[in-house]
């Protein structure tokens, strides 16, 4: 099977992600410089922690332009958690922070109150089901990403901020926390993003990774 490049810029739980990718039969190439990106034609961008510090590390390692270019060329790219958030234009975490701008929209705090006015516990930590945006038609948009995955499958979320896509056409699925919709998965062309962690979402998550690696 093919190889996938995992962008290794000093953030994220790369160990678990690499083991999950290997589990579905794909070789992992750790990409620690933009020059190395030529070695593969499919990429995963992990990310944990603060949006701003992830962006700074990407910039320091020169990955910004390389990732934007890969997205333009239509090579498959999957951003996970903060790795998905940085695909957007801007985040409001610790002041305004510019993102890669591959996808239109913003990243902002999960609402502090639930829809009953009770305090939401934040971070949002736990397994949640997804609601697919356009029913069956959406399955086309989402393409192969959710193929062979049960509609009621749950995925593991752990985050305090969430993406707000400017264009609903890129929103693939959301979940609900405290009664509020929370962006779960996005897609624009061959650029995919999941707020949840597929590498930590058991069988369903492994299936999603497998689907991406075959996309």
């Amino acid at each position, binding site marked *: 099977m093919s190889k996938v490049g995992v962008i290794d810029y000093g953030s994220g*739980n790369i*160990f*678990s992600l690499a*083991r*999950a990718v290997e*589990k579905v039969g794909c070789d992992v190439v750790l990409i620690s410089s933009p020059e190395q990106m030529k070695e593969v034609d499919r990429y995963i961008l992990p990310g*944990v*922690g*603060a949006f701003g510090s992830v962006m700074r590390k990407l910039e320091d390692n020169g990955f910004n332009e390389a990732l934007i270019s890969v997205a333009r060329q239509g090579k498959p790219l999957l951003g996970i958690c903060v790795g998905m958030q940085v695909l957007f234009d801007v985040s409001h975490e610790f002041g305004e922070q510019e993102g890669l701008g591959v996808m239109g929209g913003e990243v902002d705090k999960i609402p502090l109150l*639930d*829809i*009953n006015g*009770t*305090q939401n*516990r*934040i*971070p949002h*930590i*736990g*397994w*949640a089901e997804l609601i697919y945006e356009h029913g069956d038609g959406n399955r086309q948009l989402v393409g192969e990403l959710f193929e062979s995955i049960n509609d009621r499958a*749950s995925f*593991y979320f*752990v*985050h*305090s901020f969430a993406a707000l896509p400017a264009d609903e056409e890129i929103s693939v699925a959301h979940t*609900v926390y*405290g*009664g509020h919709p929370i962006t779960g998965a996005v897609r624009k062309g061959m650029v995919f993003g999941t707020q949840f*962690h597929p*590498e*930590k*979402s*058991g*069988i369903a*998550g*492994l299936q999603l990774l497998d689907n991406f690696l075959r996309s």
Partner: protein
Amino acid sequence: MTDASPNRSTAWSAVKQKRIRIIPRLDIKGQNLIKGVQLEGLRVVGDPEEFAKKYYEEGADELIYSDVVASLYGRNSLLDILAKTAKQVFIPLTVGGGIRSVDDVEALLKCGADKISVNSAAINRPALISEISSRFGAQCCVVEVQAKVFGKGQWMALYDNGRENSDRDAIDWACEAMERGAGELLITSIDRDGSRKGMDLDLVSKISSIARVPIIASGGVGSPSDVCDAVDSAVVDAVAIGDLFHFGRASIREVKGYLTHHGVDVRL
């Protein structure tokens, strides 16, 4: 109580009912999975990696590894166990025991941990919580509060795996931990740990009333109905279970089946 509270299904009806995570808690000594009573009288249960894999396959939502002698000896023997586990277990792994610095945290994260939990070192030097939280994110920083009853409605925070009293009020300590950046609280009742007598419901509900972050209740689950009781008495996000699973007295599927039947939302 064995029946679902009639209020449970309606209380969260507007908001989707809170889903509970079921988390096997694996206490580790050296290379062995062990289980004690009130964190003492340790008994060897088996190979932690085998148990971890079994729990993953049975539908555990997360795993907690805790090195119970790490604080005593100032080391953490979990790196090896953790790395092997992360090769075959694809759910979140929380790891605690003997963590004293951001470097310790980094070493664990590099071996596959998703979250770390701190107790002793944070009690001795509370700034450790904010150091971890600002470097790796609050979502990574679990603070374990080991609470022991010292009178009605009062608990003290213990450390060194329940051996030492910090002379801090456990509830005050939980509040301080959140202010310093804890992203989750693991509340362990020392009185109930390994007792199979049910959870300390007063403790769980007291913590629930002040929590702004998710809480994991731990200590005392002896039967599936004990989990229902905790869910009925407080808003808990997760329940950690050791004894009941380790000695095969109930499987994760059985506990989740029981909870579903009694109106508690769990991942099936």
